[in-house]
């Protein structure tokens, strides 16, 4: 790993890890703040995976909450009906979501951008409906499902602080996976596809395969995040997986900046903070989301990262 990461990036990673470790200690008197940090870490995993799909392979999914949902319900239901320990049900659920994602991705990647968004919206809605009115009420339908804590090697994660550290480790793990993926042949192939898939095809890149792979990876990330969510709050219901969640992921990604490691970090953090800051102003939240999204699209299409990159370029140009 050290062969790939330059010195500046190493410093950044150090800071990230140290801050991550220290946060719960700072917030030890405010369990609510630790909970919010847990949410941030969960969303970070989901959005990082989403970035692989949108930022790196240039596709779109507007119903990504579906995989988040499959992960959450998959893990909760599996544990409830078979008793398999949560640690494993989370993985199984994530793998299941990946398989579903691959299946859906195969025909979806053929579509033009706006049809792809329609197809993914439709898929998101279908998953939501299935969970809301399941055959035989296995998902609990609108009543939702109660579930238990995650236990790692016998150690029960029953406080927010304990869960936080587990989540932190998972975030680092997933970021590592993403990093290695992107700096490998797979990643380069995806970037080539994003720029011009015809040319990539001409150069011998199996476009279809990599596009589907991007879907699969993002589904895995989102589903595992969903499973983590389920065992953090321990009560899930269809209301937590509506279309608005998909839009939130998209907002977080676009706001931070696509095709990067730190873009999702920036996006998730800021949007989550915004969520918290807007809690008292309650009923204006959706309005602010919409305005923010519009703003980002119109004025900063590259997100914050894009702004920083162009500022850096301007500075470099001025120096010349």
């Amino acid at each position, binding site marked *: 790993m050290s062969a790939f990461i330059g010195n*500046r990036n190493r*410093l*950044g*990673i150090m*800071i*990230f890890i140290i*801050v*991550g470790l220290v*946060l719960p200690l*700072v*917030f*030890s*008197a*405010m*369990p*609510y*703040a*630790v*909970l*919010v940090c847990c*949410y941030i870490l969960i969303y970070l995993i989901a959005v990082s995976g989403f970035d692989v799909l949108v930022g790196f392979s240039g596709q779109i999914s507007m119903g990504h909450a579906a995989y988040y949902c499959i992960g959450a319900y998959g893990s909760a239901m599996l544990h409830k009906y078979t008793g398999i320990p949560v640690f494993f049900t989370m993985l199984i659920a994530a793998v299941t979501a990946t398989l579903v994602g691959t299946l859906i991705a195969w025909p979806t990647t053929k579509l033009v951008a706006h049809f792809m968004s329609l197809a993914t919206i439709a898929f998101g809605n279908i998953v939501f*409906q299935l969970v*809301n*009115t399941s055959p035989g009420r296995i998902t609990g*339908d*609108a*009543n*939702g499902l109660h579930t238990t804590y995650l236990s790692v090697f016998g150690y029960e994660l*029953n*406080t*927010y602080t304990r869960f936080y550290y587990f989540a932190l480790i998972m975030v680092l793990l997933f970021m590592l996976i993403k990093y290695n993926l992107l700096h490998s042949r797979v990643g380069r192939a995806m970037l080539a596809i994003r720029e011009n898939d015809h040319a990539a095809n001409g150069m011998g890149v199996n476009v279809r395969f990599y596009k589907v792979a991007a879907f699969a990876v993002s589904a895995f990330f989102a589903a595992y995040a969903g499973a983590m*969510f389920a065992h953090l*709050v*321990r*009560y*899930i*219901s269809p*209301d*937590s997986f*509506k279309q608005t969640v998909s839009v939130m992921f998209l907002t977080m990604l676009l706001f931070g900046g696509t095709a*990067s*490691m*730190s*873009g999702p*970090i*920036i996006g998730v*953090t*800021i949007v989550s*903070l915004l969520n*918290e*800051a807007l*809690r*008292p102003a*309650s*009923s204006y*939240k*959706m309005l602010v989301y919409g305005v923010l999204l519009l703003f980002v699209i119109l004025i900063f299409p590259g997100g914050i*990262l894009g702004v*920083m990159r162009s500022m*850096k370029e301007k500075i470099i140009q001025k120096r010349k």
Partner: protein
Amino acid sequence: MRKIIAGVLAVSMILSMTACGGKTTNTETPAGTSASGSQESKIESKGEFILGFCSPLSGSNAEAGMQCLNAVKLGVRQINERGGLNGQQIKIISYDDEANPATSLAAIIKLSTTDDANAIVGSLMSSCILGQLDTINQYKVPVFTGGTSPSLTSQGSKYIFRTTMNQDYAMNDIMAAYEEMGVKTAALFTAQDEAQIKSGEQFEKSCEEKGIEVLGWEYCMDGDTDYTAQCTRLMNMNPEVIFFAAPSQPQPLFVKQIRDMGYKGTLWNKESFQQNGIQIAGENSNYVCFSWPCVSYVDANDATGIMKDFLMAYEAEYGALPTSDCAYRGYDAVLVLEEACKTANANDCQSIADAIVTINQLEALGGVMDFTSGTGEGYQKGQLYYVNDGKYNDFMQWLRDGNYEAFKEQIN
């Protein structure tokens, strides 16, 4: 470079959180065990009484949530003018939970810990409260709820208090009416959320016990506005009565559509059929019946006593009468709170919770509230009404005057 920025952002996040977070002496404890006992210091350490509020303020349930908040604000203002609770002025901290259980959970946790609430007017959505049960029991802050589902109090929590009627109690009244009417067949139509489905299940069960045949159960989804298929099937079943349980938006739509389809029998709502709905359904709302402690008004002068005072004050403050029953639920919560604090002569969470259980003769908007059963239920029975010409009329009186036979003749 970018990683450094990310790190800086994280640091600024810490700073901003510390800045806007409050000070609290609760240390984090494993969920499920009791929180540290620093409750008494709340009165000395801060000069005001914090009343939390958490309900949907956006989305399709916004009407209910916002009017509930308005009523709570009104009640709080009145109490503050009278001197507050045991000398403390009340401050409201409100959050929009978007009817999303995960958001609602976060809001409750924040209110219980960072915001240091003495009491909370909790979510109107039963599904949100269900997700919070463990948390409420852990932090022991008394929560008033306007949710109607029986599952909220059936878990035996000592900190949840209902300021509306348990929908199962309404069912008892309805079944008593059916018995006198001699109803033989019924059908139902419900939406797909927890409270409505529970209501349907209770209806089915009660009908079975009374020997009434349930011919069918139709569902509608959230966001649906067209019920043609369901109404057609209901018409084919030809039931003597139809029971429906749905949120406030679908109610008048269903009434309109089933009547347009030609149904002339009595329609039974799980809760009060509001004036708003009567307006939208028009003439079709005749012979919609229900049992509930309160009804809605188009003119404050139609009400009496404490309800009239409330309506006039609400209209003066907000320019219009409330259209949702949830406004009454919020105001009743404040009334119960005031009474509890007076009885307990203290403002801390545990004292309030203990005092509420002793209340047995509190005059509230829906009648007399009695919490002594210890289950958290305040209202034990409602009043049976039927709608005619835009007005609410006494159903039992109509029935006892022998009108149902004539009514049945007319529809056949």
